[in-house]
């Protein structure tokens, strides 16, 4: 199942980071069709990702089988994640384990936990696992 990606300001005006993250989700869903369920679970919600070391931010709005990508922080995201670029990329290396839960005890998972503890990864609503778990699955390349 293919999902469509729409850039609010047009593909030519999308930031490189926005193109990269959107492309990653799109490719992951194509390669793992079961992740369509995660797109549907996130439908109607948005997530903001801020990457301060490169001064970039984007908002991803999930609309069933469409991903709307907006430059910057827009609207009222369900969750805002702030992480430097290496941590943000590291989150994609998290494995997905039993019952679709992210694995926190292997190398990549421990890196994420360490980043959280050291406040190099900040999540404004960490209790929103209804958003964070499917988002992690959509980003995971493992």
């Amino acid at each position, binding site marked *: 199942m293919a999902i469509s990606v729409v850039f609010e300001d047009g593909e030519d005006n999308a930031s*490189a*980071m926005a193109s*990269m993250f959107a492309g*990653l989700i799109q*490719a992951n869903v194509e390669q793992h069709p079961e992740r369509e369920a995660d797109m549907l679970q996130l439908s109607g919600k948005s997530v903001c990702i801020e990457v301060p070391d490169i001064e970039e931010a984007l908002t991803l709005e999930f609309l069933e089988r469409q991903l709307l990508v907006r430059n910057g922080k827009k609207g009222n995201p369900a969750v805002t994640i702030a992480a430097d670029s290496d941590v943000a*990329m590291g989150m*994609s*290396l998290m494995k997905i384990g039993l019952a679709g839960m992210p694995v926190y005890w292997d190398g990549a998972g421990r890196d994420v936990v360490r980043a959280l503890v050291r406040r190099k990864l900040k999540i404004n609503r960490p209790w929103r696992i209804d958003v964070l778990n499917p988002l992690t699955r959509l980003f995971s390349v493992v």
Partner: protein
Amino acid sequence: MAYDAFSDEWAKAYKDEINKSPVYKQAAATWEGSVGLVVEAEPENNFPQTTGVFLDLWHGEARDVKIVSEADAENAQFVIRGPYSRWKQVAKKELDATKAMMQGKLKLKGDLPTIVRYTKASQEMTECTTRVPVIYPDEVPA
């Protein structure tokens, strides 16, 4: 001994550095695929012609690294493109390659999940670049 940047001798030295790296060997143990680096011309920096670097990488080994045309580099499975001055910044560790791609300072083409999966390998390849002594054309006295 220092090598002219992006020369055949530099390519051989770079290949040797990659193959000497146990970190790369482990991080890229399952990597299969070619990588093309396109170094765009900057005549003002004494780099008059766009040059390609073709890396034949297989299971933790650089089977070949050679200087090629732009077109040949573009035929690789994964292509990273940027101007000469950006590549020089990366080689001198003044610019992180992952950040550069997220900022659009280096343009990336290829299957994104695969590239993200091997982030550690690509980071080590950048480290290997920094270990090759280089003579940059814009630093040669006139």
